[in-house]
């Protein structure tokens, strides 16, 4: 007898399940409340949650997989794809965002823990058509090649200059070491940060 294979075509995908919206999450929340009120076995952990995140100053409410990272929620639920997924394990820095003004890795997170925090992504730096000084400096100094790491580099540099507005030249490479650039545009990235220093 051949073992029966479960393929994804037999089951709704997680994305479809989530896109189905609120009803599934609300049903689970109801079950959870019943479970705690009676002596029945404890409710299983919820698959989804409805959360409100403050992103670039705007409150956004969405259903998410309880396990989803802030990175995945930004990209796949909110539609802000400027934040990039490189390694997804905290090594490359492509997913850097600001949380309450401090640079953080959005991949090493559980999105539901970020309600009530002020999240800033690359999309939130410019003022309309007016680029943020760090963005402008990256353009002027050609601080990129392929561009994949660039949004993480820029957000990290904004975080660095907030932590240390007068960062000495010699400390910039070490304090940007959480952002890898496989094209090795490092000399121009550090030049851009030196230039933007004092303008933010």
């Amino acid at each position, binding site marked *: 007898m051949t073992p029966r294979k479960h393929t994804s075509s037999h089951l709704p995908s997680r994305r479809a399940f989530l896109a189905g919206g609120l009803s599934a999450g609300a049903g689970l929340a109801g079950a959870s409340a019943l479970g705690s009120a009676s002596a029945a076995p404890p409710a*299983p952990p919820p698959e989804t949650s409805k959360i409100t995140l403050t992103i670039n100053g705007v409150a956004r409410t969405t259903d998410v997989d309880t396990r989803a990272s802030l990175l995945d929620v930004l990209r796949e639920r909110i539609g802000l794809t400027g934040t990039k997924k490189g390694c997804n394990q905290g090594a490359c820095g492509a997913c850097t965002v600001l949380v309450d003004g401090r*640079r*953080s890795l959005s991949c*090493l997170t559980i999105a539901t823990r970020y309600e009530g925090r002020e999240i800033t992504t690359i999309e939130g730096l410019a003022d309309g058509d007016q680029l943020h000084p760090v963005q402008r400096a990256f353009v002027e100094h050609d601080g990129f090649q392929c561009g994949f790491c660039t949004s993480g580099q820029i957000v*990290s540099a904004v975080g660095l200059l907030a*932590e240390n507005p007068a960062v000495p030249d010699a400390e910039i490479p070490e304090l*940007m070491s959480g952002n890898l650039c496989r094209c090795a545009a490092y000399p121009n990235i550090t030049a851009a940060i030196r230039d933007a220093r004092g303008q933010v």
Partner: protein
Amino acid sequence: MRTFHLDRPESIPAAVRALRDPDAQVIAGGTDLITLMRDGVRTPSRLVDVSGLGLDRVDWLPGGGVRIGALHPNSADDPRLRAEYPVLVEALRSGASPQIRNMASFGGNLLQQTRCTYYRLPEFPCNRRNPGSGCASIDGDSSKQAIFGTSGSCVAVHPSDLAVALQALDAVVLVAGPDGDRRIPIDEFHRLPGDTPHRDSALRPGELVVAVELPAVPFARRSHYLKFRDRASFAFALVSAAVAVDQRDGVVRTARIALGGVAPKPWRATHAEQALTGRRLDSAGIDAAAEAAVLGAAPRPDNHYKVQLVRRVVRRALNELGES
């Protein structure tokens, strides 16, 4: 990853109550735990988020010393800490990346899990991850493994820089638990693997780290951290040393030498401390300490280099301390 309940207690007693669930796991910065959960190394059904407990303060104690909350980020760098405990701030600055330091907590840093490749890949046997399953490293790659304190069950290294600095500072870990509060000296906080490598800390079930206390000790101000790694930044230590001395009239009265990257816990090099005590911090004294630091080393086939590296890291750390 398995789904989980997310508890967000607002008081320490509520957090301790939530931890009665044997399947619960504390989450602070999450920078280690989330990768462990994604990789199937940890499978908690309940996360107890302790970020709402107000445990992120730095309190200077009236009788001297300082208490740093367990949720204080690893980006701690205030001028007073830098002046009174330089080894602490230097160790923190040498760890991870700025983004991870902003997220990661003091308590989580102490309780982070080994970076042993076999531990992190559930397809390999590992006594630390799955008790009794064996150790893939003993017949496998041992290049990053420990040279002190190992057992036939586990040869992995504790990856923390902070914990090595705390060893040199006689720190105390403050915990809250179902049976009340306890103070655990840092040297007793991490356990050697023995036959039970999965029991890596002295925490009892349901206990929560709430703070780290650094006493006012005469050697704290003259202290230094040196880390040697595969690349200039953002890497775990191959070998590191936290050194501290108290000198009177040029003679070392007390020395503290702790090593990272070489043992399953932050390793106190007591032979090296003894070799330096009563001597001057000159090249003869420093050489004696460097040589004594490797007494008892038991390298594995791929990590003999760590023995010589320990000598050199201890020597350079003490030389730099002498010049400071």
